[in-house]
């Protein structure tokens, strides 16, 4: 994924700052709680939510099982419709393809529709290195880009910023990217939106190349689908002469009929809307209408590795609604940046280690960035059992060993022996009770425990011994 995330410290380390940043936590708490409450209402309106969820799960599982077949069908359909399909095994290859396509147009500027896939591969940075400026046109992405910041939420990348911070970013930075912010800009949302509109309009009207991702690709017709809320994406998809779409291979669905399910579940899960405000669909090219040249870059970048894992592959069902982020108590306190990836929150905790492997410090720590409370599984519109995958990935990390895990394994082994010998357990409990005034602070892990909490007082007698005295 993006180079900016390389060398991230482990999750607990990265989360520290956010946990103690009062403003950030308040911003996150307010935003996630507002949207989670709205989502609950929007979902409760549908009597058949459980069936829709199951249908979404089945469609995705079926597609993943026959992924090769559907991708080939998609390629044929896109080609027949006048588009060109490119296959990219990893981020570097995808970036190379896109940069080459842009250069071939002779242009040095592109407008972008908000897309997770292009962020995942660090496309903007790669284009910049080739002398090409990529302009984000989604309002929140624009805030992140202008602020030289990193996104911290899938749907609302600037969720960690409040209005005052956004005003400052607009005022200080818009000028160096294009049309400057109007004088005397306040933090009033309407004024902020107007400033962004004026700034972006200039970009839309000038752009000859647009770059997007896609929420879905329909295999039977070669149609790509983008869901968005602002209409800015539609401008990028229709105004430029060349359109390049970079899409993860797992985004394909077999038929139009399948969209019916996600048209209902995606907006309700993500923005709590009954219907998505702007749904754009395009199939290849059409004479004298929209982009005259269309390229689809199909991105693997670790996805076939995830697909090979029987438990972990369910993460590829994800439709990036971000509902799991909004209910996650860990995300709410740690913030999106701590996950060291463009995919934060519960889905990030299972997706990043699968796409990137578990060798780095951050990726080895992500499967533990959860209390396994299960709230994410409950809201996920495609029923990804995130806790199950987390535990599965923990097994891999523990197996791999390394920092911290050798000691842990030894402790677990020792405890395992005691727990397999009840007499030894009872003796240990008795010894602990007898000396209980002396050592509670020396229990393993006690340091991390007692930094913020008291340890329980050890009782004078274990239950086991009480039973022996009173009931036998």
């Amino acid at each position, binding site marked *: 994924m993006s180079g900016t995330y390389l060398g991230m410290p482990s*999750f*607990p380390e990265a*989360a*520290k700052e956010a*946990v*103690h940043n009062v403003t950030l*936590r308040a911003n996150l708490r307010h935003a996630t709680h507002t949207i989670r409450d709205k989502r609950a209402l929007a979902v409760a309106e549908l009597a058949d939510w459980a069936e829709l969820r199951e249908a979404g799960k089945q469609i995705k599982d079926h597609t993943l099982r026959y992924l090769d077949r559907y991708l080939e069908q998609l390629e044929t359909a896109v080609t027949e419709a006048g588009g060109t399909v490119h296959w990219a095994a990893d981020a570097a290859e995808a970036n190379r393809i896109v940069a080459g396509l842009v250069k071939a147009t002779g242009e040095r500027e592109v407008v972008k529709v908000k897309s997770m896939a292009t962020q995942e591969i660090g496309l903007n940075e790669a284009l910049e290195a080739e002398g090409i400026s990529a302009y984000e046109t989604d309002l929140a992405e624009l805030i992140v880009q202008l602020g030289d910041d990193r996104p911290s939420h899938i749907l609302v990348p600037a969720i960690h910023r409040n209005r005052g911070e956004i005003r400052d970013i607009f005022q200080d930075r818009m000028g160096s990217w294009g049309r400057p912010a109007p004088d005397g800009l306040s933090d009033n949302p309407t004024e902020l939106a107007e400033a962004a509109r004026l700034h972006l309009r200039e970009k839309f009207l000038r752009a000859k190349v647009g770059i997007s991702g896609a929420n879905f690709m329909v295999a039977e017709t070669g149609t790509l689908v983008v869901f968005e809320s602002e209409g800015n994406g539609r401008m990028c998809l229709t105004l430029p002469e060349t359109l390049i779409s970079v899409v993860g291979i797992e985004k394909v669905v077999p038929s139009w009929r399948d969209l019916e399910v996600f048209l209902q579940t995606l907006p309700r899960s993500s923005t709590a809307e009954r219907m998505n405000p702007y749904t754009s669909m395009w199939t290849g090219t059409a004479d004298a209408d929209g982009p005259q040249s269309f390229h689809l870059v199909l991105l693997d970048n670790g996805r076939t590795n995830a697909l090979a894992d029987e438990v972990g592959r369910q993460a590829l069902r994800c439709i990036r609604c971000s509902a799991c982020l909004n209910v996650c*108590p*860990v995300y709410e*306190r*740690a913030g999106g940046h701590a996950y060291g990836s463009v995919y934060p929150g519960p889905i990030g905790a299972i997706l990043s280690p699968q796409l990137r492997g578990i060798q780095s410090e951050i990726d080895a720590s992500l*499967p*533990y*960035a*959860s*209390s*396994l*409370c*299960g*709230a994410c*599984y*409950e809201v996920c519109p495609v029923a990804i059992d995130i806790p199950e995958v987390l*535990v599965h*990935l*923990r*097994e*891999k*990390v*523990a*197996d791999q060993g390394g920092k911290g895990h050798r000691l*842990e*394994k030894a402790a*677990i*082994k020792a405890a*395992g022996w*005691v*727990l*397999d010998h*009840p007499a030894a*357990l009872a003796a240990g*409990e008795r010894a*602990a009770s007898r000396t209980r005034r002396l050592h509670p602070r020396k229990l393993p*892990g006690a340091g*991390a*425990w007692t*930094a*913020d*909490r*008291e*340890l*329980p007082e*050890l*009782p004078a*007698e*274990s*239950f*086991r011994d*009480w*039973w022996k005295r009173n*009931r036998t």
Partner: protein
Amino acid sequence: MRVALFVTCVNDAFYPATGIATVRLLERLGVEVDFPAAQTCCGQPQFNTGYRRETEPLIRRTTRAFEGYEYVVTPSGSCAAMVRDHYPKFGETSLPSRTYELTEFLVDVLGVTDVGAYFPHTVTYHPSCHGLRMLHLGERPRKLLDAVKGLELRELPGAEECCGFGGTFAVKNAEVSAAMGRDKVRNAVSTGADVLCGADNSCLMHIGGILRREAVPMKGVPLRALHIADILASTEEEPYV
């Protein structure tokens, strides 16, 4: 009726009072209680931390310890959830269907919601993630508390949010865990209740630990954490002390 008590390792070592309360409560309701001494730990901490191989012998031990009992009752939602949801993944299918969390056993098997308890306090109930989302205990604990004489139940704001314990999460991500716990404690204090009650002593160990640490800055707050079994076992003749 004869049942096996699965007291759980946390209760055995740290909260024997909850085990004793469970025994008294069940006996008061006419249930004969056994404590198979071969039991130790259900394997949840090992399993959740990623030590699958080390979990297997504990699953076999636990299953063997409770062989022959029609009902196995435990005052721990998370251990019941471990047995119920994860044992089948290891090929153990008999124990899960016979294992009941305490409030589930009282309401579903014994068919009682009024257990004749007396507990003259204001109480707020924290449902705990495993009880809530894996066992789907729903209204059972609240119904039991509602029927307790002298008890006033207060709704806990953000009740469904995790308290931040999460087993080894409490140590591996201590700062986030404590931040979650502090929010839980703040919500509980806002109810004005004097007891925060739950069905899982591991969550209560974490919440109680924070409560005692925060008790200094929150001077005068009488709130304490207590297992639901301790409340349900309390009677006018033998009140909880």
